[in-house]
């Protein structure tokens, strides 16, 4: 079965990103396909490489990056939501005159159409948020 997952809250503040991660991992472990993970609202804050969580806690951003590299997961950060919240890749930095970027490995910035496409192409779309 083909799943897509939407993550609407940032790391640590709400459990949404944790549950989405555990669901995605369990779906992959059960042999399902995960077509896309789409980050919207504060969910875009999962895609910054600038976090340094305490040593004795999970690293939510790295966990997503690693899962993406292991399973060729498509992690998409919504561009409009990212602009409001300060998540930028090299292209966005150039376009908006920023002096650097902060996107984490394995994430890419794209439009809301990617969410609709995920809804059309997937058998199930699951939303995790506040």
């Amino acid at each position: 079965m083909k799943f897509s997952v939407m993550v609407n809250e940032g790391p640590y503040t709400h459990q949404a990103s944790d549950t989405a991660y555990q669901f995605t991992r369990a779906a992959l472990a059960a042999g399902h396909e995960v077509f896309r993970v789409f980050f919207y609202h504060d969910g875009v804050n999962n895609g910054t490489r600038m976090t340094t969580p305490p040593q004795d806690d999970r690293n939510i951003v790295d966990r997503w990056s690693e899962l993406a590299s292991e399973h060729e997961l498509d992690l998409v950060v919504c561009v409009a939501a990212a602009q409001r919240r300060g998540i930028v890749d090299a292209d966005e930095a150039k376009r908006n005159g920023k002096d650097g970027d902060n996107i984490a490995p394995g994430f890419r910035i794209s439009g809301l159409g990617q969410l609709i496409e995920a809804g059309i192409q997937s058998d199930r779309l699951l939303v995790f948020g506040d």
Partner: protein
Amino acid sequence: MSETKKFMYINRHAPHGTVYAHEGLEVVLIGAAFEQDVCMAFIGDGVFQLKQDQDTSEAGMKNFSPAYRALGDYEVNKLYVERESLQERGLSEADLMPLTWEDEDDDWAEKPSIRVVSRAEMSDLLEEQDVILNF
């Protein structure tokens, strides 16, 4: 897949206190380009999104409520509002923005987009969908 899916956007948040209503509306407007069978549902505090006369100037925020009037032009013309949610909040249909669309199959007649439905009807509508997003 060349199919058309039934998409429902459920709106359960009041406007302005959080961004969900605003960013949810952005999804609906972008999604309209994909030619799916789209409807919106307004449940609970979501009905406040359609309240007339919103004016955010003193609060210093963006007033995105005029964008609901554009929905008809994007062929998003099924806006289901739960009657019980209106009643619990002391609102009636007259409090809502008069949203309309033009029916090209009926000589471009202007028709209302908002349909006030009972909770039982809303429950049926949920079951009919293929994809549900909740804002």
